[in-house]
């Protein structure tokens, strides 16, 4: 168990360092600066600082940049290792292929965490400096977005373990979109009287993640505090879903003829 944890930690650490050294990550970080400056430049009529607009746009930016990190960096974890054959060397030092996958996952999640802490902190500080008030909803929304994107990382890892880059990106985006509107699709199927599609969507609802649970906009826009119990359930749901997808990914990688 101890050696397994040390292996996971080592892989996660090197994945994190690898991501930090990537110029793309620096670019993503630097993108935040013009967006931060936009809080000032967008004020065309000199009407003063617009709190709601800045917090809303800021969270959208955080979510978008996080999504870029998830898609680009998760892809750079498993597929290049397999293509460059470095994965053979890693597997000789690993207790199992599951360990490798979990290590890679935690590497990306740590990178994502750094990004979210930096961006959410920047947003909170900008608003605090301009309005003098702490907007506690923003760090909580940042946490919820982080949970959502961690779940997406696990899905990308699962797909990366069995398909090529282009298919991984396409299916990940599809799952992301469908995951946000599965209940709406189901409702439309039911309203259209198509019970078979509704049933199939019910089944899909058990396997696919429900990203609509991570809705933060209402909470932030209306400044309504999130319930702690709901956040705990959300964290539990995210963890189980992550383990589920990583377990499937690990099992596929285990049986894959490399």
């Amino acid at each position, binding site marked *: 168990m101890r050696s397994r944890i040390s292996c996971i930690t080592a892989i996660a650490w090197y994945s994190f360092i690898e991501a930090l050294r990537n110029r793309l990550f620096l670019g993503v970080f630097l993108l935040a600066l013009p967006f931060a400056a936009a809080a000032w430049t967008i004020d065309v009529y000199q009407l003063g600082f617009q709190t709601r607009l800045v917090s809303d746009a800021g969270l959208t930016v955080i979510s978008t940049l996080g999504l870029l990190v998830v898609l680009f960096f998760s892809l750079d974890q498993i597929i290049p290792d397999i293509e460059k054959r470095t994965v053979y060397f890693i597997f000789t030092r690993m207790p199992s292929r599951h360990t490798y996958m979990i290590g890679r996952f935690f590497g990306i999640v740590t990178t994502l965490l750094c990004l979210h802490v930096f961006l959410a902190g920047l947003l909170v500080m900008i608003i605090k400096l301009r309005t*003098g008030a702490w907007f506690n909803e923003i760090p909580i929304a940042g946490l919820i977005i982080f949970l959502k994107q961690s779940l997406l990382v696990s899905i990308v890892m699962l797909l990366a373990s069995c398909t090529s880059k282009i298919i991984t990106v396409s299916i990940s985006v599809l799952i992301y979109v469908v995951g946000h509107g599965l209940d709406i699709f189901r409702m439309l199927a039911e309203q259209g009287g198509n019970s078979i599609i509704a049933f199939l969507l019910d089944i899909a609802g058990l396997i696919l993640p429900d990203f609509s649970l991570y809705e*933060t906009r209402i*909470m932030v826009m*209306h*400044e*309504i505090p999130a319930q702690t119990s709901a956040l705990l359930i959300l964290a539990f749901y995210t963890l189980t879903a992550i383990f589920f997808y990583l377990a499937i990914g690990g099992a596929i990688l285990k049986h894959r003829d490399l």
Partner: protein
Amino acid sequence: MSTQPQKSLTSSARLSVLSALMLLAMALSAQHLMKSRYWEYYYPEVQVANFADIVLQTIPGQIKSFVAGVLRITADEYMHIGPTKKAKQNFVAGSFAGNTEIMSLLELSVILEPTNTDMYAVMSHNLALYLNRFDDAIKLLHRGIQANKNAPDLHKLYGAAAYCYGFAKKPSFAAPAEVKKYREIAVNYLDAAIKSYLANEHRMSPYMHDDFANLQNYYVMQSRFLADVGRKSEALAAWQKVSEARQISFLGHYFTMLQQEEIAMPDFPDHLLTAAYQALFQVSTIRPPYSVPAAYRFWLTDPASLYYLAIYARGFGAPSLLAEDCHEHRSSELNQCGHDHSTAQHEHVTHDPHLQQPVQPDHVCGPGCEHDHHHESTHASGAAHEHEHDPECPHCASAKSWKQAGIPVMIQAFLMLATTIIIRRFI
């Protein structure tokens, strides 16, 4: 031996590159010549005044229109939400008046889609009448007029300018000379609006009808402003064009007095409205809580906080509108928990042995009620109610959101956990 063909190859490559560059330069020159010579055809309704405008021209119109639409919807959402609770903002939910949050979004919207005349009107009214930026409002309208010179609803922009000039200075707060000066300019804009309306009437489709920017309103405003600036006969002539139904008003009363040559005529029709202004101030009778349309989406938040969301979701939050949505509670009295307890359907009994006296059937529950109901508590208001109504009762949606969303989430989570264990154990 091999140097000769190599040289000729290099020179022919140079010639090709030079020819390509020359052709490119000629194409660009021709393009710019055409654009500058026939600019009215090339940029029929769009101002191209600076580098940013040229860059915008490179983006497809559909994309710009889509983004502009999203920005307008977001601005509308901000308008309904209102000010933040933590920072001081001088506007209220449900009105564009004085709302500063929407202005940047609408500005971007008109930059992307300069042909949307309605946005100019909203922005200019807000800037001129509520945000103390009259000059900016007029500049914006002029920009809009330039960008929509040939549009059939150009009259809306002239009408908006007339409204800004007409009501920026009011007789109650400004000197009469200043009011008259502004209203004279407003009359000019109204003339332009009416002229534009009549010229383009045949081009207007039914969906272009505007409740505010229409010919009848222009005549009403024209007659009123003409009266204000002292051109009484012209005002009466304009008033004759107003439909009879619209003539029944305070302004109509003023013009009747004018026709009868009353001695005690006020300088401005506004002075007739003093009593009406006082009657406008009313106290809101909205009582919480109401339903939310899609409880599932709001499961992260406390149901007790959803009252504001309900108002936002239902638009203006008028109790009559909210009651209409609920078939269970139509035309009934709502109490503080949002339900009608005045009917005999709810049976009230006491569980406390010390309070054995029965509760009257017509009793209306309040937060101070000491009795309990037959049904369980789900409301966060503390009034311990559950409903034997239709299970789809929208008033219960906020209270049920937790159960609705939480249980499937937990079931899915446990299923995934079980599958994970099975995979790890056996695969």
